[in-house]
């Protein structure tokens, strides 16, 4: 199996459940970015990160994880991500750091630069719409990301 063939250099992964309130931030961000038809950018979305996402990172020049954050800075934080064997490594839902750690475990590749765009969310109930505050945070985050991608 060669998971590295036919690779687009930049990968953006939006994480979250579209039907759980502000957890929709990740997939909604991907939906918005898809509309921009960005060159050299592959967009992925999933409910949560798991070990196999490590293989999506193979051969990339840069990786950005977009996720809702239940705590932390508003409207968003954008920070480099480093591999770490945190507690999420033992769960069905990995952190970006744990995915990077998994990448080092299962591939012989150099780790691409990776960033986490953590957009502050507030409500995560099944069936709830995205909160107005989270929607504003997402707009601010997307504006930053679009400017960065255009630079």
């Amino acid at each position, binding site marked *: *199996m060669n998971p590295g063939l036919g690779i687009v250099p930049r990968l953006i992964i939006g994480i979250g459940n579209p039907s759980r309130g502000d957890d929709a931030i990740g997939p909604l961000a991907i939906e918005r970015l898809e509309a921009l038809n960005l060159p050299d950018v592959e967009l992925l979305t999933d*409910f949560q990160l798991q070990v*196999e996402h490590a*293989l999506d990172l193979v051969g990339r020049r840069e990786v950005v994880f977009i*996720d809702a954050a*239940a705590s932390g800075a508003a409207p968003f934080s954008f920070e480099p991500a480093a591999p770490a064997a945190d507690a999420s490594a033992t769960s069905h839902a990995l*952190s970006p750091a744990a995915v990077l750690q998994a990448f080092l475990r299962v591939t012989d590749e150099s780790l691409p630069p990776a960033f986490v765009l953590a957009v502050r969310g507030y409500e995560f109930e099944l069936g709830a719409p995205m909160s107005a505050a989270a929607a504003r945070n997402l707009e601010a985050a997307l504006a930053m990301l679009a400017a960065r991608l255009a630079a």
Partner: protein
Amino acid sequence: MSFELETAAHPTGLKRVVIEPVSRVEGHGKVSILLDDEDQVKQVRLHIVEFRGFEKFIQGRPYWEIPVMVQRLCGICPVSHHLAAAKALDQVVGVDYLTPTADKIRRLMHYGQILQSHALHFFHLSSPDLLFGFDSEVAKRNIVGVSAEFPDIARQGVLLRRFGQEVIRVTAGKRVHGTGAIPGGVNKAVTREERDVLLKDIYQIIGWCRSAVALAKRLHLANAGLYNSFGAFRSNLLSLVGPRGALDLYHGTLRARDSAGEIIFDGVDYSRYWDYLTEEVKPWSYMKFPYIRELGAEEGWYKVGPLARVQNCDFIPTPFADAERREFVDFGGGLPVHATLAYHWARMIELLFSAEAIKDLLHDDDILGGELVVEGEHSERGVGVIEAPRGTLIHHYRVNEDDIVVRANLIVSTTHNNQAMNESIRHVAKRYLNGRKLTEGLLNHIEVAIRAFDPCLSCATHALGRMPLSIELFDAEGACIDTLVKDSHERCG
């Protein structure tokens, strides 16, 4: 089948230990343990956040949206919900039999899901306990430790998951939020190119699955005394079985056996599951307790999932997996194996079966095209049952004349195993915790028992910063006197 340790005779004044949430299971689980002054276990309960609100989430939507919407109930097994809903809605659109193409593409999708789910559970969530020991050094007892000492196992786990997800992608249209199964059939066939890519890897996949069964078996046999007794309890078994008693995880009729392996019922059309299964409500748990109606709540509870399925069927219709099943059955010496840790061995047999079933389906040209959808006379009610990775999954809908879902009832695999999981942790608590100072390693024994069932406790939400494990010890006055977390130790009192 007793309910010993479910409720303490005199709970006032007992010490309370809480494990919340249970790690390496999906969603949120909490275990509470009551101890007396001599640290004797008096009460043990597994509390699970129920799928509350799910029915409400579904009601009021047009029926054709449901197979896509229900995937959002669970980020771990969305394909199982997708297919169970589609099967229920087949009945709503009056379809008793799918076309060969639709049936085989759905099966392919389902076995892709089983493969990737079982691979994650064994290789990444359970292997640390099994390879290093339940109370081994916590810093090592994780997938990083496994990777360091058993790099092939960690890598194969990732590649098996990726393969399973590729099978899902080509059959459902996407890795997530797929739309492949629709009421009455599927919306796409597999292209020859997609098929050939998967075929290229399937023999390697089968080889790894055979090695995985061998490893699970070796671990069990090497420490049979522990594996046979740890959290073991006798219970009834429930699953679907296919024609002539074949293992079939996609479709079939309901079969139940008692703890000695005798048939309770067989060949039951799941469209009227409520004639055979019902649920009990207990005031201390959000999650209901299903049981076999004719036996009553005390005698009628059962277990579902790999351990039930591998023993409930009469044969597995693929050669390597059936050879492994026969060896497993022989190990039981003519009686069902009820060891909780035998779930791992049985799960790997199913992993192998899934890989072999995928291979057979990839070689079947029906998946490449043909009639995709059929429709018949619409009905107001539909029931879909599937054997999801964790066990029997029931979707039941009622649709009005405007095609709107007005009622939904879901009984998920983990709910079927509710009493079984409680029973298992009570056995473990009684055996390992009685009279001993609690440590992380000892409490992990409780989690090992829960994890064997691979419970999916719901919740596809996962926002950053929410995955701590804390274990809190309360004194008789209710004050917190100690807190343990997975990677550090801190005091709160």
